[in-house]
């Protein structure tokens, strides 16, 4: 197996030395033509595993510090060369004020137009943990109120403190909604396990009617589930008390997807806490199941 190890410094340095973003987005013919932008910096920290996920799925990954993007941010086509935009986990600006808030504001004020253009052009986006919180702050998720060609919408949902205060680390089981338009979860399920680790993951909607609209449109691709696979609000299967077990959201196109748990931390079969038991039972998957999320993203980019 070739090493797809990403050394943060090395890759960042390259990106800084020779910004190589093509200005138009050609239709990809094969996986390696799929270009993924992983935004880094300011306390984000899951760049290596996110990059490993997309590169194992065959795509070409650029790790770029947000400050480099902002230098080009005035241009509406700043993101045009990319098929997939990854908003990664970590503690942007320490999660001070509120998780994702400062980072999302910086994007909204300085990269908003380019983000809107990227979405309108059918770009794909994945937000994990802090990245999901960022997408929600940006109003891109659930993203039901923004019309094409308009600026970023106001925020409509929020990820608030876990019912049991504090960061909590556990593996969770997610029930996957096969009827969701989400392209990232296609064919995954009925359940998938992965690590969850956050302090602010309880998802609240602006109002009840929005919640109903989201549920009716099947924009909740993943829910925390109990051992039987049924959605749950009970701790610790649901680590934050999110109503209805909502663990993630997608937009109506299904191309923008965010979730609190970390598919990026299940790229290897041996990440799973039961990997030895699974192997003894002949049930060890060939790769970590979180990889399937990344493969789906690349597949969707190839399908156009």
């Amino acid at each position, binding site marked *: 197996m070739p090493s797809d190890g990403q050394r943060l410094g090395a890759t960042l*340095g390259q990106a800084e030395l020779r910004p190589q973003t093509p200005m138009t987005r050609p239709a990809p013919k094969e996986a390696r033509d799929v270009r993924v932008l992983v935004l880094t*910096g300011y306390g984000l920290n899951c760049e290596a595993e996110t990059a490993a996920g997309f590169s194992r799925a065959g795509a070409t990954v650029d790790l770029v510090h947000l400050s480099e993007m902002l230098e080009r941010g005035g241009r509406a086509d700043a993101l045009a060369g990319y098929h997939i935009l990854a908003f990664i986990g970590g503690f942007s600006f320490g999660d001070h004020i509120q998780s994702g808030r400062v980072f999302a504001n910086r994007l909204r004020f300085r990269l908003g137009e380019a983000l809107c253009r990227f979405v309108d052009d059918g770009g794909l986006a994945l937000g994990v943990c802090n990245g999901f919180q960022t997408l929600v702050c940006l109003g891109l998720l659930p993203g039901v109120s923004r019309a094409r060609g308009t600026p970023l919408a106001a*925020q409509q949902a929020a990820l608030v403190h876990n019912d049991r205060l504090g960061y909590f680390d*556990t593996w969770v089981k997610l029930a996957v909604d096969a009827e969701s338009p989400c392209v990232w979860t296609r064919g995954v399920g009925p359940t998938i396990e992965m690590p969850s680790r956050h302090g602010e993951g309880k998802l609240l909607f602006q109002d009840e009617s929005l919640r109903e609209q989201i549920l009716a449109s099947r924009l909740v691709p993943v829910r925390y589930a109990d051992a039987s696979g049924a959605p749950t609000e009970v701790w610790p299967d649901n680590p934050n008390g999110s109503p209805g077990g909502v663990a993630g959201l997608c937009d109506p196109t299904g191309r923008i997807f965010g979730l609190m748990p970390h598919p*990026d931390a299940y790229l*290897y079969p041996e990440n799973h806490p039961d990997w030895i038991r699974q192997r003894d039972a002949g049930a060890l998957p060939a790769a970590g199941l979180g990889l399937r999320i990344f493969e789906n993203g690349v597949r969707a980019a190839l399908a156009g």
Partner: protein
Amino acid sequence: MPIYRLEIENRPAVPDALATKTAQTLSAWLGLSPARIRTRKVYLCDLDMSEAEAEKVLAAIADPVIEVAAKGALPDGEPGDPPVILTVSFLPGVTDAVGKSVKTACEDALGRALAGQVYTGTMYLVWGLPRADVERAAAEVLHNPLIQRIRIDEPPRRPDLSVPRAGATSTPRTEIVPLRGLSDEALEKLSRERLLALSVPEMHAARAHFEAEGREPTDAELECIAQTWSEHCKHKIFNTPIDYTDPQGNTRRIERGVFKTYVVAATEDVRKARASSGIDGDGGDFLVSVFSDNAGVVRFTDECHLVYKVETHNSPSALDPYGGAMTGIVGVNRDSFGCGLGADLLANVWGYCLGKPNHSGALPKGLMPPRRIREGVHHGVIDGGNQSGIPYMRGFELFDDRFVGKPLVYCGTVAAMPVETAGRPTHEKFTAPGDRIVMIGGRVGKDGIHGATFSSVELNESSPVQAVQIGDPITQKMMFDMLAEARDRGLYSGITDNGAGGLSSSVGEMAEASGGAEVDLARVPLKYPGLAPWEILVSEAQERMTVAVPPDNLPAFLALAARREVEATEIGTFTNSGRLVIRYGEEKACDLPLAFLHGGLPKVVRSARWSPPARTLATAADREKALAARPVADLVVSMLAQPNIRSGERYARHYDHEVKGLAVVKPFVGVSRDVPATATVMRVRHGRDEGVVLGEGIHPHYSDLDAHAMALACADEGVRRVLSAGARIDRMAALDNFCWPDPIKSATTPDGEHKLAQLVRACEGLYEACVAYGLPLISGKDSMKNDATMGGVKISVPPTLLVSVIGQMKDVRRALTLSPRAPGDVVYLLGETEDACGESELSRLLGLSLDGVPRTDPKRFAARYHAFAAAHEAGLVRSAHTLSRGGLAVALSHMVMASELGLSVALDAVAPGLAPAVALFSESTGRILLTTRSEDASALEARLGPHGLVRLGSVEPGASGRGYLRIRQGGQTLAELGSDALRRAFQEESHAV
């Protein structure tokens, strides 16, 4: 400049988790039952912005979905039902990381840079408690007066606009401190009052130096000498000659000190043995860099080395558990990062020795209750590591009431160092004269002044509050990201942490490489004005590193830092003048020859005499009587609930174990993922299968009987742990962390000679173990003043050694856990069980002082471990567990809970002639519990039979999906315990809270 107060609160329908947690803590700790609590965030913006701009900022930072916000004050509930309002905010000059981010958010919202600062606070609106109870809640739970201020309001209130601006308008000058003609008493007083922690002979040495130069020292020079010569930085006790009288009464001189005689010697002996055996082939020495840098470095793969360092942060954690412990973890991150030219941080470890959480006795005034220290230490290390994006791979808690004075707070970091960077070996710095001195990261304030000297003396009522620092992990993370880029571009030639002693230490150490340095303190960016030059020189303000940048690279280095919003400032130049010259603008503050600074410390011969205090030990009859009263099943369950045995999962789950996506065997294992792993395993690079294995040993209680046996037991357990997880036996290395009570005889330490003899004995034991196990010591730390005197009461920690072992695997898919795999597998105990219950968990459970400390025979055990490792290599081992505290019974219980399978074991062959309780709870070292397939049993017996292999029984299917432990002897069943009963006891605390 007007100050704008912003208050932000959750909407009424949105739960307030901080309020819920606060109410629970007040109830559990103080028995207070408020009717309701709500919390608010308060931001006092002391920034040059207009009223309209403040409104714009508020709209940008408050959550439109879940929060309400106001400029000024939000309404404080209904008029007829007023709360008592407690506001907790920082004292002037204390790091306010949130305030820094709020300022950034303000600048982003307004699109321009702002002058000034933001000061943050938390408001607690409490209903249903009288003001006096709220004051008590503040004093005992919510507020630490060393770093925070409080205000209590009762509505109607006028919004408080006072901000804790720090600093003074005038800058104090460098002063001359005359030493000539001072009596010894006056020198001693000067040392004490300035917190120099220099002894009279050391003051004499300093005075002689300046007399020879024909002048008196400046305050900065004395401070610089004090930091450099501190116990913390110079490890005086570890390096000094010792006249040692051993237990047999023979006296000899340990001329080179214990560090060189035992610690360095162990490593050198291992290095020689490796060289003569040719074990490393032509792949290069296993030991890449030891004892010479901020952390130890060993060879791992052709692509990267492994770096490891464990630190202690005891004194700061006693004063401010949250901030002190957080700076422990972010500080050791800088050590591992700043090794060579810089390493990529990979994994963190933690371990705390604390007073018992249920401590109910009276505490000397000035000490915090152990439960508050515990809570604060955990949260500080959780926040520091999690926010840095580094997974925690090990953690332990150990309780004894001798830790109520100074807790021991261990924090460690493993890093992966690329073998080469920009065409150079990464483990070597190449600082040359002419390279610029750049300070990078946070700014300098009065926080952390005298940290190094403060930790070199006991804790008492007059301990300096400014020694406390608070970390800002995000500022540090941004610095690390930038430095990693700079490293890969080859922009700098040397780097080191600004930790203990601040710039005086970091520049002073790096200056040794080039042969001198010249610094202008007036260029150092300050948090606020008014610092004296000597304060700038020794401040230990956090998140800073010192970097040597060749002049040609300086523009590129500074430009990169600016792009990444990391503050970097050129403050001087490395020279070859042989002197450390410090100016403040035109004024010279310090001019010291490096030879004197680093070599001028006078050596004192210390005296060590083995003279243990008399102990009254329980007799065999006492023990028999106590055991006869307790059925075995009762003992097993009670043991699992002992503070040092139970799960600890409650806190551990708040540490991130998964970030980076590389973990393979995590800190908790088993079906329910609630059993602490023997050792942990993780990949090091994505896409590669080589792994790092971590384990440790710590047994302070054994020191009460024999520090020599204690040290052997610690090293032995660390080795057994990593081997039990499948580590290669030929690639182990260790760190030694000594935390001792003051071992220098004095009026307040009459038993100092014995404590120093305990140190000698421990070092002897450590040496023996390391040489026998081929275990080089690659780095370490000694902390020698772990005493507190409060209100006339002196509390000293027991002599404590932590041995942290780092192992390696060629393929993590060969890793083992403690969890048995399948019914029908055979259970074995490898290694003899002796009557070794002295200072064991059994002795504490029974409340008896028992004799018989575990005896480690490292040469014999080493042969056993080689045989075990070979058996694993041959595929004969299915699971393995290390016997530790609580002995066989605890290890078996772990295996049952982890697997939810039945274990049926017979004790007959374990310890023939001994009581079953001794067989179950003896803490004999050198033992591994393992399982194998029944078809492999004879092959395993052939290999391990000569090494004390005992067949215990077999793995059974479990009953209704639940595991059980059945213990038999002489055909009788002594105990049968289901996993639910075991787990109830094991998780007693988790359930209670």
